[in-house]
């Protein structure tokens, strides 16, 4: 092959295949540059950064929507002709575009639109900080889009870093507040450590397998594990398999950090408490969605090679077995410690941080179920991924709603302590109703959206049990998940009890704050929480579409 034809093939791959499916990221990048340019040029300085960012993100949302609609079998409201294949590797295999990518990107872009409106209304950042804040948010979201579509270890690491590093600065956004600086420093040090461990794991995996491209790695992994021994745990072949296990575990550290899964959750409460509620909303919703997508990507990418049954298939079954136990154990511990840690919290943001950790556990339960049924029961596996996608969709509204309420109440009451919310029902009944809907939905009680998504996750565990796939583990996970739902009831409802039954403090200093705009914001975010609990077929149809990615 001469240089000319190499160049031509690269050009064709980039311009005709990759870039048309990369428009969301391009729109985000262009928006970042535009936000900064508008600050630089005196002519454009009157333009509010939030508006520029909102315009750019609207473009990204439109592109994400048309990518999702262009997939074969895009279901709702009406079936349209597919404009691109169901699965397409981009940039020579660095990224992959499929229904999961399209769904997560759409969620992220939709979240960004709501989020920018939310920050505009809640007043953090102010106009002066707007350009910096939105640049950081958009840069981080760009990394999250890449996390959802990474197909190569290099891109996995880069995407995780791109999503994390701007968040460190975001956590320290309230300059001059000690708690905020402490949050940023803790987050940065912890993140750097996790990234270092993850990079070491990646280097071990790449060193043994000789490649960084996930499907090629899976083929090599299946060959080594299948050749070397009957199972993972035979002492004779301790060589590469021990190194692969170590590499996998070290890589899991980085992913668990992004997911805030126990035992790598320590940063989460401190960062959420120290940073503004707006930043907490971003970290708990967008970062979580991307991290779950990446965990699914890595587990599916390393554990399955499609239907081709050859020598590597048996080896990959062992890999999946290992992954299911790793993810399942982490899910059980994360759920339980997250929920128990939430007890006795007096700060609302800290409580929501533990709630975020617990929800990461529930999501990991779904990932474990999906990986368990991967390759064994394609239908069940698809349903498990559907449950995950649906959960992420509803979680967006639940947690954005929760943090919006915290931010609005902070502006009104000048406090984020739960005790300060006492007797709020007398002065702000609407806000208490909204908080009630969000918190009850976070518990997972009918008829709210949280119930449907939790039900879907648990039913995929049940499906694995009835089909006898990893039965003991799945049974344990189901019991732990159920118990945790009961545990979580108490601390969410305690907040509602304080809001309704406790007498309001006599010396409350309620700031005169405008009512209708924050009220409209909270309503706009909370109404979907109620509606999705009843009319969930639209979102479910798209979640099902996302679930088809593995087949």
């Amino acid at each position, binding site marked *: 092959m001469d240089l000319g034809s190499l160049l031509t093939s*690269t050009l064709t791959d*980039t311009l005709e295949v*990759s870039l048309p499916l990369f428009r969301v990221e391009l729109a985000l*990048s262009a928006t*970042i*540059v535009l936000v*900064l340019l508008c600050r630089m040029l005196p002519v454009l300085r009157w333009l509010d950064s939030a508006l520029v960012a909102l315009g750019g993100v609207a473009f990204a949302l439109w592109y994400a929507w048309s990518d999702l609609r262009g997939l074969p079998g895009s279901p709702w409201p009406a079936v349209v002709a597919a404009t691109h294949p169901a699965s397409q*590797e981009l*940039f*020579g*295999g*660095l990224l992959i575009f499929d229904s999961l990518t399209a769904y997560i990107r759409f969620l992220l872009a939709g979240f960004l639109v709501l989020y920018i409106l939310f920050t505009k209304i809640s007043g953090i950042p*102010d106009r*002066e900080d707007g350009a*910096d804040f939105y640049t*950081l948010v*958009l*840069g*981080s979201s*760009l990394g999250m889009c*890449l996390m959802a579509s990474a197909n190569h270890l*290099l*891109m996995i690491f*880069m995407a995780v*870093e*791109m999503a994390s*590093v*701007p968040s460190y600065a975001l956590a320290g956004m*309230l300059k*001059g*507040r000690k708690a905020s600086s402490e949050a940023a420093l803790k987050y940065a040090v912890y993140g750097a450590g996790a990234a270092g461990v993850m990079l070491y794991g990646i280097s*071990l995996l790449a060193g043994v*397998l*000789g*490649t960084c*491209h996930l499907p090629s790695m899976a*083929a090599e992994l299946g060959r080594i594990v299948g050749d070397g021994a009957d199972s993972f745990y035979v002492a004779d072949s301790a060589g*590469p398999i021990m190194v692969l296990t170590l590499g996998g575990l070290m890589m899991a550290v980085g992913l668990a950090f992004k997911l805030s899964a126990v035992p790598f*959750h320590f940063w989460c*409460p*401190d960062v959420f408490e120290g940073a*503004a509620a707006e930043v907490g909303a971003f970290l708990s919703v967008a970062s979580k969605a991307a991290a779950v997508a990446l965990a699914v990507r890595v587990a599916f990418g390393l554990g399955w090679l499609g239907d081709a049954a050859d020598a590597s298939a048996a080896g990959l079954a062992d890999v999946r077995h290992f992954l299911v136990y790793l993810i399942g154990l982490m899910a059980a511990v994360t759920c339980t410690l997250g929920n*128990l*840690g939430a*007890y*006795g919290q*007096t700060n609302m943001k800290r409580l929501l941080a533990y709630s975020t950790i617990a929800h990461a556990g529930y999501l990991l339960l779904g990932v474990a179920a999906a990986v368990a049924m991967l390759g064994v029961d394609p239908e069940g596996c698809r349903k498990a991924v559907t449950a995950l996608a649906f959960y992420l969709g509803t979680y967006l509204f639940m947690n954005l709603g929760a943090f919006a309420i915290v931010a609005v109440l*902070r*502006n009104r009451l*000048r*406090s984020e*302590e*739960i*005790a300060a919310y*006492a007797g709020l029902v007398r002065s702000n009944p609407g806000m208490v109703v909204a908080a009630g809907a969000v918190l009850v939905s976070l518990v997972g009680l009918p008829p709210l959206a949280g119930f449907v998504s939790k039900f879907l996750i648990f039913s995929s565990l049940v499906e694995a049990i009835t089909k006898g796939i990893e039965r003991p583990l799945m049974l344990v996970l189901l019991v732990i998940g159920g118990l945790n739902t009961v545990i979580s009831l108490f601390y969410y409802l305690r907040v509602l009890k304080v809001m309704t039954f406790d007498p309001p*403090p*006599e*010396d*409350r*200093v309620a700031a005169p704050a405008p009512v209708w705009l924050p009220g409209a914001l909270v309503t706009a975010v909370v109404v979907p929480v109620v509606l999705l609990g009843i009319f969930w077929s639209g979102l479910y149809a798209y979640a099902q579409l996302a679930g088809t990615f593995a087949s």
Partner: protein
Amino acid sequence: MSALPMIAGALIAAPLPVAAINWHSLFFLLFASVSCGFAVAVVAADNVVRMAFYLVLSLGATAGLFFLAGAEFLGAMQLMIYVGGTLVLLVFGVMLTAQAPLVAIKGSGRDRVLAGIVGVALLALLLQAAFSVKPWRAPAAGVVAEPAATPIGMSLVGVRVDEPAVGAPAANKRPGYMLPFEIVSIHLLVVLVGAAYLARAKRRKVPRAIEVAASVEPPASVAEHASIGRERHRSGSVLAGGRP
């Protein structure tokens, strides 16, 4: 008088000891021991300026290891980015800001013991892992240092002109690195903006809501609730793992 030419003759005739030395192994041992020794010194030192200086030496010796392995580009990058970066950090970050209370960093004895146990355990694990893979134990047959910059430069614009490595999986996809190369520039832009934001002095006249919240004393009843809650929190903090 005849002894002198004889000694000279013997010296010339004898195989030169210099030729017998395996220079590759010698330099490897030299760079490796400098790298590891000063890495330990970074941990053991108490003074920030010394730590930074030891780090420069350790990273520089690592660059030497890369040169020995035939990865010249990587070695040059190591020198430029890590050694250069640490030097800048040493000059600006440490020497300009290090005031008397901040120069010495001393961990408590308990911390040192704990860190030592964790570090040694991890080292043992990684050493065992590294030596347990057969292909990694045998020396690579004849490392040939090729001029590596051209293939790297081409792959950064998306074209892979290098041959696949010997023993690489057959189905291996070898993408060019145009996307990471380009996307990391956006990332660097964003991170620079973030760093500038954090480093910038405040120009604010009107305090924000949250700052008022921090400065205003909470009402007495709230403070009382909070103190009760804090007690409860403390009892739960073993699980929470966070700040009491």
